[in-house]
């Protein structure tokens, strides 16, 4: 079978997914060791969504994400060390240790959070796109949110406003089937998320969120449409998280068999199998990849360990802009 993409790109996608997974595994481990506190929402199982989607955006595009944003942040190119340091609460973290796991920010990469109020990032994304429209910039604002957000008023208000004003927002619904512990069918009268867009005269589509190439193709197509001035687009990416909702979740609401069924369609395993099929990788390549990723993760931990704590004297710094007097 002929490969639809070149080897370098394929390996880059694989590497990013593996990096996210190993980074998350390490974060989970560091949580149990008390290095990371607060809430920790792991992305394991959903890697194809962030990695596939992020291929479609330029440096000028904006990203708005949720509290489960480690994958998006890594795929956007924020250094793993800055992210790990943030989870440690260190001053060299990407948000100076003020945000933690749920609030990654990097303005230099137009990464606008890290939003931990479900649905709260959508209006902000609409506003970022409005600013681009008013300043005649051809940019896309990509707004990630989960299926839980679909129940929020902000989802409906934001879709309506973006469509009404034809703003360049790409709404990316990362549907992992659970709003924390409440299954989609238990919180939505209409479980087909893409149909919600019809009410706002907005185009919508759905893609397999476990297939990185399917995600990339769907997001590229939607992003180009948005960038071209066609107005907003809703893309639903169907995926699954293997780990608990957060470190506080006893997982009483789903069976282990369900998790195992989804793991059978693991995005990394699926993609690796295809790369083998195309002759892009063999065992030594994969071993080398793992070694290289492990070194990156270790380096990230070292950055976090070595990072300084913000001085307590700076507690109230940046509540307001410091104006030179």
């Amino acid at each position, binding site marked *: 079978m002929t490969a639809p993409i070149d080897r370098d790109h394929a390996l880059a996608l694989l590497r990013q997914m593996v990096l996210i997974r190993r980074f998350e595994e390490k974060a989970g481990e560091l949580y149990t060791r008390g290095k990371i506190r607060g809430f920790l929402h792991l992305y394991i199982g959903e890697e194809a969504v962030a990695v596939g989607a992020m291929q479609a955006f330029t440096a000028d595009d*904006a990203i708005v994400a949720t509290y489960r944003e480690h994958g998006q942040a890594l795929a956007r190119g924020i250094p793993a060390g800055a992210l790990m340091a943030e989870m440690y609460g260190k001053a060299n973290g990407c*948000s100076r240790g003020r945000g933690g796991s749920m609030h990654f920010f990097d303005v230099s990469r137009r990464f606008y959070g890290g939003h931990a109020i479900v649905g709260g990032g959508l209006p902000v994304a609409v506003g970022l796109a409005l600013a681009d429209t*008013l300043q005649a910039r051809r940019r896309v604002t990509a707004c990630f949110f989960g299926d839980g957000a679909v129940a929020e008023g902000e989802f409906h*208000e*934001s879709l309506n406003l973006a469509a009404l004003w034809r703003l360049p927002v790409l709404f990316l619904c990362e549907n992992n089937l659970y709003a924390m512990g409440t299954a989609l069918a238990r919180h939505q009268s209409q479980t087909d998320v893409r149909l919600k867009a019809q009410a706002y005269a907005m185009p919508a589509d759905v893609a397999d969120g476990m297939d990185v190439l399917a995600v990339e193709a769907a997001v590229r197509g939607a992003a180009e449409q948005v960038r071209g001035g066609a107005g907003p687009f809703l893309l639903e990416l169907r995926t699954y998280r293997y780990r608990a909702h957060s470190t506080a979740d006893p997982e009483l609401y789903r069976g282990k068999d369900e998790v195992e069924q989804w793991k059978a369609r693991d995005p990394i395993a699926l993609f690796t199998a295809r790369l083998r099929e195309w002759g892009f990788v063999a065992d030594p390549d994969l071993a080398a990849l793992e070694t290289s990723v492990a070194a990156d993760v270790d380096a990230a931990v070292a950055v976090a360990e070595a990072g300084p704590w913000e001085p307590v004297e700076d507690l109230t710094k940046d509540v307001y802009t410091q104006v030179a007097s």
Partner: protein
Amino acid sequence: MKKMTYREAVRGALRDALRGDPRVFLMGEDVGRYGGAFAVSHGLLGEFGPERVRDTPLSENTFVGAGIGAALGGMRPIVEVMTVNFSLLALDQIVNNAATLRHMSGGQLSVPLVVRMATGGGRQLAAQHSHSLEGWYAHIPGIKVVTPATPADARGLLLAALADPDPVFVFEHATLYPSEGEVDESAGPAAIGRAAVRRVGDAVTLVTYGGSLPKVFQAADRLAVDGIEAEVVDLRSLRPLDTPTILASVAKTHRAVIVDEGWRTGSFAAEVSARIMEGGFYDLDGPVARVCSAEVPMPYAKHMEDAALPQAAAIVATVQEMLRRRG
């Protein structure tokens, strides 16, 4: 200087801002074709067009959030929320985003957003259009809260809000829109965080802000007939709060009455009272007093609404009682 209404002063400031800075735009419910629920933005759509004077759907949380996003994206949005009671629908964006983004991002983000809204009672609009919740907003670090009471401040504080790099909430008391005063149309921004002594006196300090200022003036005039000269401090800004100006006045008069249209429990008046206790306790000749709204949802019937709101007569009676106890 030109005599104009508070409404005209806000409109003039909006017009100057729209003319002077291409990043400025106005959005909110009925700000365009309707001309604003309080006719503040009347005529601006025709002058600046629908890109810059934008009618929004009735989606307070989302158009305030869109203002935050547009501010992050380099614009200088002015968002009008029709009344403070409606702003409760936008509390998520205000409290969780506008107020937090700068600090939570380690100083990377700046949200130069202005949100204007009408506040207060006195127009028989009952319990869902009449409350004074600016004291709640003043509780929140990360935003600034200003309460212009005069046409000159309506202009100066709005321009100051626009010049500020952080989110500023402007509370315009709905009964003030037709009030008149002298405005310097060439005046620039006022200083946020500076109170003004509006009347000089030595017998008592009357601390107030916004829509209560005219009532406090009435009370001060009546007290003056009896030879009681009240000093009137108009806070102008609730956050940041100009504590030194309050304390300086109390150090002179040794008595303070705080007049605040919010409900007494947990009111902004309680905050001012605490600041006086913390910083001016030994200057006081007696306890600080408060004249606040009765602890009821605002009633519709006029006599009941009048009874619920702080009135000049109650302020006079409070001061007289305070002076009687002097012995």
